[in-house]
């Protein structure tokens, strides 16, 4: 099931994403996120995560880095730890002490 979904998403990326070039305000883009989440979390959780991401991604959100959470960090609601791409890079100049629970968007 999750393989089927991932294959469909890849086909989508090949065709539709090309049509509109990059429009996503996040890294990775929503479709890449969906593929990653389905591959790491299976069909059910993966689709749930992807749908939440899609809901988060709109013109009023700040965007930024939003990675697929690891299975240990999975939460059914709220932002999971270690998804902002900061955990591996404390020395970096921007906001090293990131609070993990701050949503990237208002109302997320």
């Amino acid at each position, binding site marked *: 099931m999750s393989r089927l979904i991932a294959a469909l998403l890849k086909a989508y990326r090949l*065709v539709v994403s090309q049509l*509109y070039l990059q429009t996503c*305000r996040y890294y990775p883009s929503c479709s890449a996120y969906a593929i990653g989440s389905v591959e*790491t979390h299976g069909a059910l959780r993966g689709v749930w995560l992807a749908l939440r991401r899609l809901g988060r991604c709109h*013109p009023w959100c700040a965007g930024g880095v939003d990675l697929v959470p690891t299975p240990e960090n999975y939460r059914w609601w709220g932002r999971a730890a270690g998804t902002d791409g900061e955990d*591996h890079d404390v020395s970096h100049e921007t906001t090293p002490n990131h609070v993990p629970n701050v949503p990237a968007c208002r109302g997320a």
Partner: protein
Amino acid sequence: MDTVLAPLYFLVSWIMIGWHWLFADLLGIGHDGLNWTLSIIGLVVVIRVLLIPLFVRQIKSQRKMQLLQPQLRELQKKYKGDRERLQQETMKLYKNTGTNPFASCLPILLQAPFFFALFRVLDGIANEHPRGAFESQVSLFESARGAEVFGALLSDSFLATDVIQTRIIAMVMVAGMVSSQFITQRQIMRKNMPKESLEGPFAQQQKILLYVLPLIFLFTGVYFPLGTVLYWLTSNIWTMGQQLFVIRRMPAPGSEAEKAQQRRQAEKARRKGLTVAEPEEAPKVEPGQQNGEVEQTRQQPKKTSRAARKKKRK
């Protein structure tokens, strides 16, 4: 499905009926085929005008992007050769400075239900199954059922008909969709991208796209009713116009379009009898640089599993 979309059927059909009323009763155009054609175009106009605020937001954000250029170039130097990291850091920069040039896919997602609702409404007109406002407007339903342009019914589709005019018009519209998309794409590529990013994988993908897109449009053109195809064609043309406007007014630094803009400004200044300012030296652009029209210099992110990314970081 029908119950979920019922409100949209009403919305779409009322907008169409509204435009039809404007053209038929207020302006007194006696050709019902023309009236309904114009009402579908009107529907696109209504939806796209409602989406303009989103578009303006995007443009404003892109203008602010110019100010971020030095920081972006620094990042490019720092993460040379690591595309993925560069993308991450770029996104972080956008977030921290509150300038995200991307619109997200919401504007596109918002349009999809309208497109589908229109498809269902037109399909209903073709199959004598009134949907939305047409349920109560029998005479308008009959008028829409008989609406034809150049001998082709608007609710008819290429596959469902053996009327040659319908087929010809469907194919003409497919050609229109393909060429408008092609022009949009070409304008972005030729005019609004720094020369360096025209090479490499991105350009390759663009070439593949040039073959895949006509197939999609061809499928749409034979399967969907003429009215729906018209909706998509109009929408495409609108996008093309918007894109041309942006390229003219807000070209990406280092692109052909920017030079053209500087030439125009110099010309204008000369005609007004002012001193001619030499066009500024175009800023140096690194390969794959993301700038003003970042969405155009898109690189397909390489798919890696989280495990692989972790490995790379170590």
